[in-house]
């Protein structure tokens, strides 16, 4: 039994000791919800800080280093400032949609996070169509962006939102297909099965060539999904002001801002789970001693190390590559990624059929 499983079981027992089974169940749900909300806020702020700091190092600067030790409290201060600010909207905005939009993004990201296992048995719910659910839910977020762009009655917002729609429709395909490639190897859409299948080798090593191609495609389209540079046409500061959230201020802006970073976390977490073994420690074949040492590092630590690695990779992209034009964006997806992806699935299917994997 893993540490995280013991922890959840202990909490379960403790609640059962205090309440009746029904009430304990509700209490568990409330606790989980609160835990995820807290995680959402903390991870979002931490990622904003990391991004700024890492961006600074790429540009040989220092970055935020005044508030708190190493500037760690800078983003907290920024968030407090945003919360205290007056929300200023446009007069002709469709107020209902305008105020609704941020919640679409937040809720879809929260739902997406909830299926990702951060340790053994450590996800809010482990359904048997987990991967499918994740893809479905993460594309609800784009509705939020579209609504925000439409509702704020601003041409720049609308252009940004429509670009986001086009981008999402295209790249969603690549994300789905590259995940599907790995599912061929695992044979289950349930996230815990996906992780369990990697107890000997991580999937990226197991499926070698096609798995690696799928990994690269997933990283590219994942970056596009989370609207980060080089795919940030949705906001494109230099063209559209702030794109779809031009008209938002105060706490609503903070929601958009945070959810962007949480989306990056989700994409990285999915990449880490499906390709790099999630919370599974790094094992090399039959090297018992080495494998035992690796087992001592707890699952969540592995999970966050791998996720962090991919997040760093995405930040590296951001500070290296220039933004794509919208036609280049479409060309990249429909002429390159999609055909390659389909070929790759065939290749993987062939490998699985022949049993040519580790």
């Amino acid at each position, binding site marked *: 039994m893993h540490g995280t499983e013991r922890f959840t079981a202990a909490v379960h027992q403790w609640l059962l000791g205090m309440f009746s089974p029904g009430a304990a169940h509700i209490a568990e749900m409330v606790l989980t919800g609160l835990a995820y909300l807290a995680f959402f806020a903390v991870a979002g702020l931490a990622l904003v800080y990391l991004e700024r700091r890492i961006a*600074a*190092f*790429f540009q*040989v*600067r220092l970055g935020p280093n005044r508030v708190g030790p190493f500037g760690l409290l800078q983003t907290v201060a920024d968030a407090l400032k945003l919360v205290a600010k007056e929300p200023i909207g446009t007069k002709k905005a469709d107020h209902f949609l305008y105020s609704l939009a941020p919640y679409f993004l937040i809720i879809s990201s929260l739902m997406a996070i909830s299926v990702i296992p951060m340790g053994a048995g450590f996800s809010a719910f482990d359904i048997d169509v987990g991967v499918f659910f994740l893809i479905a839910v993460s594309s609800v977020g784009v509705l939020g962006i579209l609504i925000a762009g439409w509702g704020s009655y601003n041409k720049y917002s609308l252009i940004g939102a429509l670009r986001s729609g086009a981008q999402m429709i295209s790249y969603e395909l690549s994300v789905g297909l590259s995940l599907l490639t790995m599912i061929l190897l695992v044979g289950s859409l349930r996230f815990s099965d996906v992780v369990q299948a990697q107890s000997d080798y991580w999937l990226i090593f197991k499926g070698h060539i096609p798995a690696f191609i799928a990994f690269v495609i997933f990283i590219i389209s994942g970056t596009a999904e989370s609207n980060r540079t080089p795919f940030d046409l949705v906001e494109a500061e230099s063209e559209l002001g702030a794109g779809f959230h031009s008209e938002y201020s105060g706490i609503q802006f903070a929601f958009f801002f945070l959810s962007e970073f949480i989306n990056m976390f989700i994409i990285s977490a999915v990449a880490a789970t499906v390709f790099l073994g999630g919370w599974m420690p790094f094992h090399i074949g039959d090297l018992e001693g080495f494998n035992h040492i690796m087992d001592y590092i707890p699952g969540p630590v592995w999970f966050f190390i791998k996720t962090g690695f991919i997040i760093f990779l995405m930040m*590296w*992209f951001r500070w*290296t590559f220039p933004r794509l034009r919208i036609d280049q964006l479409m060309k990249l997806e429909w002429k390159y990624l999609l055909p390659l992806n389909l070929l790759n699935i065939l290749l993987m299917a062939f490998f699985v059929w022949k049993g040519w994997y580790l």
Partner: protein
Amino acid sequence: MGYFSDIIHGFKTLLTGMKVTGKYFFNARKEIITQQYPDNRDTLTFPERFRGRVDMPHNENNEHRCTGCQACEIACPNGSIEIIWDRVLNPETGKKKKAIEKHIYHLSMCTMCNLCIVACPTDAIVMTHEFELAAYDRSDLTFVLNKPGSKLMAGVEE
């Protein structure tokens, strides 16, 4: 086959870019180029070509190198420089010669573009490293660059 070689070429160029930025990132600790300004106010270091406000250096005898040729005044795109000059009699040669009375420099209009420095044929003015230039009154932003009582350095004109 152009299709696949395009893809490979694309990845190659992307990796080249990442190599460059990666090198900066992993060496960042050693060579941060920004300075923690208000903290190190006493030990600030300036790059050689730093452009602060324009000034006219004088030597110990209160002499400058400005002949009053007005090249800087013409070169300045913002009209930040005004030269007030007169013809003064040179006692040795008995000829009247152009000499500056006031070299007026309006910091409020200056963009630190360096054009006046380049234009000056006698290198009479320089860009200093002074950059804390805020003032409470606009009139404090107008400077007379030649010091009172100063005169032209001997031998500049030849």
